[in-house]
Every structure is written in structure tokens, then in C-alpha cells.
């Protein structure tokens, strides 16, 4: 995982993995729900 670093800046601060997980979950969970709902409709195509 890449982290930002400024020229001349000190070592990167510890990144909160929790913050990253929450941010991705906030967008990932609804998206996964939408894809799942769509796939249930798509199933008719192959049923």
C-alpha cells in the first residue's frame, strides 16, 4: 500500500487502517448490494 510523503517531511504517520476500512465499507457495501440486486434480475436471462 502506497503512502503519501512530502519531500523533506519526516516518516509518514501511522495510517489508521480503521479509517480506510470504514471509508471503503461506506461505498463498497451499497455498491455490493446494488450489484447483488442486479444479478438477481440477470439470473432470469440464464434461467
Amino acid at each position, binding site marked *: *500500500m*502506497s*503512502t*503519501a*510523503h*512530502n*519531500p523533506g*517531511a*519526516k*516518516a*509518514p*504517520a*501511522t*495510517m489508521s487502517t480503521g*479509517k*480506510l476500512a470504514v*471509508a*471503503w465499507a*461506506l*461505498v*463498497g457495501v*451499497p*455498491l455490493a*448490494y*446494488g*450489484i447483488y*440486486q*442486479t*444479478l438477481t*434480475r*440477470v*439470473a*432470469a*436471462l*440464464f*434461467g
Partner: protein
Amino acid sequence: MGWLDRERTVAPPGFNRWLVPPAALAVHLCIGQAYATSVYKTALVKHFGASLTEIGVIFSIAIVMLGLSAAIMGTWVDRNGPRKAMFTSAMFWAGGFLIGSLGIFTQQLWLVYLGYGVVGGIGLGIGYISPVSTLIKWFPDRPGLATGMAIMGFGGGALIASPVSTALLKMYDPNSGAKDWVASGDAVGRLFLTLAVVYLAYMLFGAFTIKVPADGWKPAGFDPAKVKAAKLVTTENVSAKNAVKTRQFWLVWIALFCNVTAGIGILEQAAPMIQDFFRQSDGVSLVSAAVAAGFVGLLSIGNMAGRFAWSATSDVTGRKRIYMVYLGVGAVLYTVLALAGSTTTVLYVALAFVIISFYGGGFATVPAYLRDLFGTYQVGAIHGRLLTAWSAAGVAGPLIVNAFLDAQGKPGQLNAVSYQPALLTMVVLLVIGFLANLMVKPVDARFHEPRPDRGRTHEPAMEA
């Protein structure tokens, strides 16, 4: 409102750049609702006693405003940074729903035009371009992947909004269990209020999460010299004002216009088209309405997946080559679809899926293409101006398909042969786009922004 200024959003040391894509997605997933308006279209027709066309105008105004606001506000977005742009977009988008709901509750259609169409449309345009240049700056090593992730959200937004809106309409309407139920206007008004609140919260999360990289920042291990090694990729910068004077801008405009027009041709007609392609001589289609709805869902997935997968692939292949695939392979697939698509449903579905993935890929790859040609300086503003190609294609695509189909017969009587003139016209368009893309070359040095070691005596003129 100084807390929204660009200077206040510069990332501190240690900021993880992988927080930026979810911030961008939070905005794009919300504005992607624009493609889920069909959920309440019939309800609004009934509520206002209006025609389908009169209700369809709401969506058309929104898309026109998207193109206009992206083109006009692009420079403002680049100057003020992503946080202020996302915040503004959130206000307009949520405000559009609020005004729209007022129009529904008070039975005034013009207020829905003004709310969702004009005000919401401005939110769409600003929101669409708001994270693009920031993502490109955070991911100079993988710009296609970065913009693909965000613009995938615009495709994914409808996948979420559609089932959620249907569920909310059922919850808000006490008669939802009735046979042939159509949601009441009151239920749609409440849906608009709910969407306003939810979208506002999500977009503000995006606005307050996004940060811009500090000047001179680059990812660990990234060597700009390697990027420069690609022939079309520049380390120079071109302003938005000068970009539109270059031949390259208009060649990419044509390529995007042709790619989007061809894709919209299928998307607009997706459900009736698959039924018509497999209509038997007795007039009955082998494809039921439920199966056709499944096909539309599959195309939505293809559209979304193509945005991410093809755009990410362009980081490896280069932007010009991937556009050759979208337009060149697209033209071949369209030809096969027109001439042999009715042989089996599997072939038809597979061809349509890949074609639509190219359509989505074209949208997602174009910001990185612009970065390659014009640099990062005002790439957001240049992208905004390029999106007028989308607005133009939004008019041209349905116009071409509907004009040809009207000449072939009435809905319900059409078959695969009826679609051939429209589809083969799309093939011609794709070939034109392919040739335009083939002609793209590096931007002439006279359009590059001055540097301390290299001045410019006068503004460059429009390229012939």
C-alpha cells in the same frame, strides 16, 4: 467558508492516498442516480397527468445541465479544489431533490424541471468532474485505474438507486400491494426528500475525506521519467483555454462522441431491441419481458465493469491503443451484432455486453488521455469542456436509432433486420472515431504553459 479552500485540504505527511478513491466514489455513486429515473417515471406521468415525453424532459434538462456546468465550471473546480467543488455539488444535487419534491407535493411540474433538471443538473456536472484532477495527481503512476474507480461509481449509482428507490416507494405508499400498482405522487415526493438527505450525507463524507497532495509529492518508487518515455505522454502543461485551440482536443472529442453515440444506441433500446431481435414470424418474441429486464441489468454491470477494467488496462496499453480497441474492435462487434446477432441469444448477449463495456471504458479512460496530452495543470477544466461530446451524443444517439426504427415500422412489429440500418450507421460512426483517434499526436509545444526558463511572447492561435 475558508475551511473548504484548497489550501486547507493539502494532505499531511502520512496521508494514505487510498482514502481518495472512496471519497470520489461517494460523490459518483450519488450522482449516478441520474440513470435510475425510470423507477418513478410512470408514477410521475400519472401524478401530473403528463405525457412520457414531458416527464422525460426532466432527465434531458439534467443531462444538458451536466454538460454545460462541467464545461463552464471546470476552471472554477480546478482553481478551488475538490472539497469546495464536492460541497457545492452536494448542495445543488440535494437542493435539486428538495425543490423537485416541492414541485411534486404542490403539483407543479415546472418546479421539478427547475429542481431536479436545472439545479440538480448543475450538481451533476460539478460532481462528475470534481474528483478527477485530484485522483490523477494522487495516482500519477496509475491514472487510468484511479479515474476508472471513480467513474465506475457513476455507473454503479444507478444499480444502488434503482432497488432502493423501489423499496422506498413501496414503503411510502400504503397501496403498494394492489394489482398493477403505480406509486403515488406523495410516495415519490417522500422518496425525493429521503434521497436528498442520504445523498447530502454521503457527498459531504466525500468532501471532507478528500485531500490534495502537497506540491512536489510523488508516490514511493515513482519515476516520472518512465512516464515521459511514452510518446504521447507529456510532462508539460496546457491551459484549458489553449487546449480547446488544439487539434488533439477535437480529435479526442470526436472519438468520445462516436464511442458514446454508439453505446447509447444500444442502451436506449436495450429491452425492446433484444425482444425484436428474436421475434418469430408470428410476431411473438422468444425473449420475455422478464428476460429482457435481466438483459438490461447485465448491460448495467458491463457498463460499470468496463469503466474500471478497461481504464485500468489503459495504464498498461496506453490511452491511444485502448481507444483503438474501443472503436476498432467495437466496430467489428457492432457489424457482427447487426448481421449475425439474431442467430443465438448467447452470441447477442455476449456481443452487447462487450460493446457496452467499451462504452463505459471510453468515459473512464478519457481523463487520463487528457492528462497524457495536456498535463495535470487544468485537466479538470479540459475534461469538463470535453464532456460536451457526451451531451451531443446524448442527443445524436437516440435520434439516429429512433429515426431509423420509425422508418422500419411500429414497435412490436420490428425484427433483427429492422435494426440493421441503425446499427450499421453506428459502425460508420465508430470507424470515424477510430480514424480521429489514430490521428492524435503530441500537442504542439507552442501551446505549453510558459516556464521560468521558457517564456511565451503571445497567446497561441487556434490550430488549423
